[in-house]
């Protein structure tokens, strides 16, 4: 009898043992039907989807408020005012326009987050490519080069907008999330140059029609040249000149040529035209409609911003009346052949029977480049979020002028400098002028008006105080945006505010 109990006890204890011993695996489950960061990026398709997500950030315009570079930086410069329905429509834009941002008001939060999101995604994809074993060499080379270009691209925006920012080139481990300190602009520029120098050899000189929008070798070289020029260090200009020459020379391998007609550059029908070097594509393919996350769509919200409010008439579609063009720019361009391609004369439209609402800071002049056109208004999704109008960030006339500037600064090859400046002017029927820095800078203003270069040009050439001082620009402060207060708070002061904003 006793024996039986003992057997039974043994049996039960044995059953318990079985369950105790298998416990390790028992708790380690993997979810099904969900892609995880840990197990994604295992083939070319998935890595490609990863790099696309980095590109995606380039077209964002609404991270933590509206931050479309082209109209926003135009508002900051003397090209346009902020506009909108009133001063409190986009207070961040108005603050940038008047240089009275503080740590909480201004476009800094959105621009900071946008660019660091791009950097994080680039860092992630670089770390994934590093460990991937299933990628072909050409694929790996190109995607690595693209990721480095994109990281450099986002850092170039950050260093120009904020000066000192944390330099993060890896995926941060959990322990290091809160302890990143800012690096100097020189350190950041060094990393940008390094990334771009490593990137361009791995990129194709030309991009096939189906892939237009991916980065080419020409774009990377142009970007590197621009980065070198923007540092105001003459020692760096020899390399810049070489890079620009490679792009600008007749018969360049990239197929770049000035568009014969100036206005054609900005015609949405002429996507990826021969003058376009770095172009950010937009489309209505996402048929987007989420006002809470406009970035999820692919449209150009900047287009919606700069359109005339409640416009009723030919050609244009209605917009929100931001960025009315300053009379200063109007006067500068008044007699210039590029006027009609650059500025919409509202008074003239009204005379032709069109109507629109005058909004805040109205001048009756509006940005024409990438303005909303009836013919391109999206029929799918919310039209305001789906403008299929690309933005060109670097184009050949820009690299001509940058090369000319570098040549003049270093005093080398004045003939080539003149040739480049004349080419830009000649295209619109203007005659030759002396190749001086002032003339080049003036030409940049007229040629590249409202394309988002003017503010950075004023800052890097030291003209900002003179030109923008009357609207509030202060030297040694307004060159940079304030660091978002949330960054300072959350790092408990490891991130430091920019000078003048405390």
């Amino acid at each position, binding site marked *: 009898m006793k024996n039986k109990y003992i057997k039974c006890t043994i049996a039960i204890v044995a059953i318990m043992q079985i*369950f105790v011993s298998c416990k390790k695996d028992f708790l380690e489950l993997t979810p099904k039907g969900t892609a995880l960061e840990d197990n994604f990026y295992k083939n070319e398709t998935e890595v*490609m989807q990863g790099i696309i997500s980095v590109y995606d950030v380039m077209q964002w315009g609404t991270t933590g408020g509206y931050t479309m570079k082209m109209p926003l930086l135009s508002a900051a410069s003397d090209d346009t005012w902020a506009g909108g329905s009133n001063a409190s429509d986009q207070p961040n834009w108005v603050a940038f326009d008047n240089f009275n941002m503080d740590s909480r008001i201004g476009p800094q939060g959105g621009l900071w987050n946008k660019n660091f999101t791009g950097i994080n995604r680039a860092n992630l994809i670089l770390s994934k490519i590093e460990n991937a074993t299933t990628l072909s060499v050409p694929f790996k080379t190109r995607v690595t080069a693209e990721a480095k270009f994109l990281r450099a691209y986002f850092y170039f925006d950050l260093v120009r907008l904020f000066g000192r920012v944390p330099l993060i080139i890896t995926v941060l481990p959990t322990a290091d999330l*809160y302890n990143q300190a800012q690096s100097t602009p020189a350190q950041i520029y060094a990393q940008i140059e390094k990334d771009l120098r490593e990137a361009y050899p791995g990129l194709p000189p030309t991009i096939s029609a*189906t892939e237009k929008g991916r980065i080419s070798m020409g774009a990377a070289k142009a970007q590197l040249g621009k980065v070198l020029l923007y540092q105001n260090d003459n020692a760096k200009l020899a390399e810049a000149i070489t890079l620009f020459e490679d792009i600008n020379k007749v018969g360049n391998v990239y197929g770049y040529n000035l568009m014969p007609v100036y206005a054609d550059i900005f015609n949405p029908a002429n996507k990826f035209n021969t003058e376009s070097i770095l172009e950010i594509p937009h489309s209505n*393919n996402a048929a987007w409609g989420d006002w809470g996350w406009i970035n999820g769509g692919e449209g150009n919200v900047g287009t919606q911003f700069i359109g005339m409010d409640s416009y009723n008439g030919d050609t244009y579609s209605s917009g929100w009346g931001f960025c009315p063009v300053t009379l200063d720019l109007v006067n500068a361009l008044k007699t210039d052949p590029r006027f009609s391609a650059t500025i919409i004369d509202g008074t003239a439209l009204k005379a032709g029977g069109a109507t629109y609402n005058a909004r805040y800071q109205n001048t009756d002049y509006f940005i024409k480049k990438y303005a909303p056109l009836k013919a391109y208004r999206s029929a799918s999704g919310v039209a305001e979020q789906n403008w299929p109008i690309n933005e060109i960030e670097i184009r050949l006339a820009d690299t001509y002028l940058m090369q000319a500037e570098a040549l003049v600064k270093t005093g080398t090859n004045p003939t080539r400098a003149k040739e480049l400046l004349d080419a830009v002017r000649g295209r619109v029927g203007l005659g030759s002028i002396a190749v001086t820095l002032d003339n080049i800078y003036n030409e940049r203003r007229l040629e590249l008006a409202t394309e988002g270069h003017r503010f950075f040009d004023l800052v890097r050439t030291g003209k900002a105080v003179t030109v923008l001082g009357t609207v509030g620009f202060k030297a040694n402060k307004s060159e940079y945006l304030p660091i978002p207060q949330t960054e300072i708070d959350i790092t408990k002061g490891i991130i430091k505010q920019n000078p003048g904003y405390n």
Partner: protein
Amino acid sequence: MKGKSTFILLLFSMLFSLSVRAQEIDVSGKVTSKDGLPIPGVSVLIQGTKIGVATNQNGEFRIKVPKAGTVLVFSQIGMATQTFAINSNEPINVVLTDTENELEQVVVVGYGTQKKSIVTGAISQVKASDLENMPVMRIEQSLQGRTAGLTITTSSGQPGDGATLRIRGTTSINNSDALYIVDGVQVGGGIDYLNQSDIESIEVLKDAASAAIYGARAANGVVIVTTKKGTRSGKMSVNYNTYLGTQAPARKLDLLNATQYATLYNEAEFAANPNVAAPRFPNPSQYGVGTDWQSAIFNNSAKIQNHELSLSGGGEKSIYYSSFGYFDQDGIVASDNSQYKRFTARFNSEHQITKAIKFGQTIGYTRTNSVGVSTNTEYGSPLNRAINIDPLTPIVETDPAKYNLPLYTGNPVVRNSQGLPYGISSYAQSEILNPIAALAVAQGKGWSDKVVGNAFVEVEPIKGLKIRSQGGVDLAFWGNEGFTPIYFLNSINQTTITSYNRNSNRGLFWSLENTISYNKAIEKHNFTVLLGYSAQKNKGETNGGSKDGIPVNNLKDASLQFPVSRTNDVFYGGEYLNTLNSMFARLTYDYNEKYLFTGIVRRDGSSRFGPNNKYGYFPSGSVGWIASKESFFPQNKVVTFLKFRGSYGITGNDNIGDFRYLSTVSGGRNYTLGTSAGLNNGVSPDALSNPDLRWEETSSTDIGLDATLFGNFTITADWYHKKTSGMLLQIAVPGYVGNSGPIGNIADLSNKGFELELGYNKRIGEFSFKVAANGSFLTNNIDFLGDDKEFLGGQTVTPQGLEVTRTVIGHAIGSFYGYRSNGLFQNQAEINNYKNAGGALVQPNAKPGDIKFIDLNGDGLISDNDREIIGDPTPDFTYGFTINAAYKGFDFVMLGQGVAGNQVFNALRRFDLPTANYTTAILDRWRGEGTSNVTPRLTLQDDNKNYSRVSSLFLEDGSYFRIKTLQIGYSLPTKLVSKAGLNKLRFYVMANNLVTFTKYTGYDPEIGGGSYGVDRGFYPQARTFFAGLNVGF
């Protein structure tokens, strides 16, 4: 396999019950009180059976017992039960004394039982005897008003709907649902599947010291349900309980009739535009009284019925309990669309295989079928529509001049059985449609099948040592289907294609638990040691699909088998999986049942926890001291029992979702490439991963005492402080990280409270009565929400998303948030005098009759920043009492229950819709100086935002007291019924929710569920009248 073994067991059970009868002894005797007075009506039962008789007027009885050694049990309400072993047929005299205390009873403590007198934790108990003869629709409701520390708020009065049950407050900002353990098996989805009369007891483990044995699942409290197992009576006892009832709404709102509606609309229109050419309703009186939409929606005689049949019994070797139940309830709102049917079956048995080996099993099967309507939403619930639709529109359009209009003839309008179209309102907007027509096109139903069971083997090789292995299963299948015909309710609510969807779900939970316990007494030292190991897995899946354009026009004919085009054919699915692996130990020690100690530690490992925190430890300790057992405790008649208790423990909440520590990647981060603009799919991580993710943790301190005064007055009092830390929220990370922060253990809250349970019983001659009362005070406070957050958003009302509740640091969870009104501006001078420091008007847009908002932040204008916490939907005080009384064959019970100190947000009217109807309270609106200081003027142009700002105007006192149950029963004398071969025959009548005392002006102040405390046209609880019958064979 389980089904088969159950069947065999059942057969065995039947066999055992047929044991042989021999050597009957005829016993007679008399029952008296201490004073020698005869006690009539005392139940005399053969122990372990339901066979028995009652004493007569002279306290005398006579009964035949099966054999020598049989024990008779003498019991009477309010008196201590006595037993007497019968060895001969000599007459016996039994003396019953008044009950000393209830503390000799046993409570279930999780993996075991404990004598109530030596329990050191805070445990509330509801026993079968409390539940018997007291029908509730759902088992959870039986706890309402009976147990201190529980806040139970009905989710809605719809048949089958549950209740929000909170044990000692809301423990988490995430999931605060208690853990339900039925016969040792964790069950999901609540315990409504149980048949009421199957329940032996319900224990609620309230403090961490008791609940810690369930470790990472116990922070929200534990409800342990034990089902009946049968008795060793040697005879089968059969019980049949039934009731039939009729339900009706307890209250209707007084809404404006058609004339009033038209008049007031004109007034509002005129206020907005005094130059209006012609009012919208030129002659309001022509509309008369109009349609009473509430009457069309409510059913004043909704039926309810219940049948329960149970068989129980057993012998020396085996005991069994089987039951079958059927419950059928129609709702009081839109009865055809609001119904619930439940069929239950149960087979429980236990078998002593050898002296040392015991085997047992419980199996409950439940089938439910239900149809339902939206119960508390402003977006298309029948009641909200009935309240808000204009009374001008007829339910059915009977005027040929109207129903021959193209509106009706040219559209697929909804028609009644006579073929007449339901009226289409020309005034109502948005979701406010003819509720009857909308119900006709809302076709859907749900079903569930659930099997919960366990099987165990217990070996006791030496006395006191028990080795037990138990497997448990909760297997549930459920699903629903819905059909939308082609219909036209109005121009913005119409369909052009039929649509049918159906889904089915399967959930399987299994657990295996092995325990060893050893119980030993060494002189006056009593030890019980428990060691256990447990593994459980919970998994399930959803499969569903929909087809649009199937060629049928009602749900009955709809099928997913119809072929439709690929684009109209959708399939979807999902799955979940989690595991838990645990070890636990408990030491219970007492010295002479005077000094008490219990220590528990449990280690839980969960698949839901991140790799850095895979295992959690949950310790607890509790001590008790029974002072009245001390030799120095003065012998007295006042305090006959006195115990002090104290406990501290840590428990966890593992309801944190599966795999949330991992970083998932998602698509949609797209980019346009190519000259022809193709969209390329981009994928990136959604957020950072968090390998540290773990359970939410609650530590709780409890100090309590139990006392008995005068022998029949019991007191249990508890004070507690619960602190929950590490509640899940998204972690704030710096923007430079470039991705969202992960979910992490961030936020803290605390609950503090005081509970009191009182009991009293008394017997005077043949009259006996018992009173039990309880009350609980509770305060909830949000302590921390992360470095980056001051508050979390909560409920909103209207499509504009106006915030109604917020969870703010320093206040209770989900408190009401809004503006404070300071009466109404009575005249222009008051508006002009309401100036800020700069001399400008604070409310420049106000007109006389508008709300004067308080400028809380003092910045001189009224803006979003002038909002603050203005109320709390959770009661500060919850109370209840039960009175039982009996006289001869009559019995009476009354259960009263109430809450105090909470508010209800009255969002019955869609204030965003100018054409929405009003309650007649609007007749007391401001119409000129001095006419009202509460209800603002009417205007279609609400520039002052009287109705588009959430303000204290809409808050009402939510306190109530309710006669929850009132019952009178009569049992026929045993002598009489035994002639008919019965041992019990009882009739009763009962009322549920007979009276509710409240200042709240809506249907029902008790508003639980997802819209907690916000009344959007809440489906109220019914007032029900029952007649019932209990028969025992």
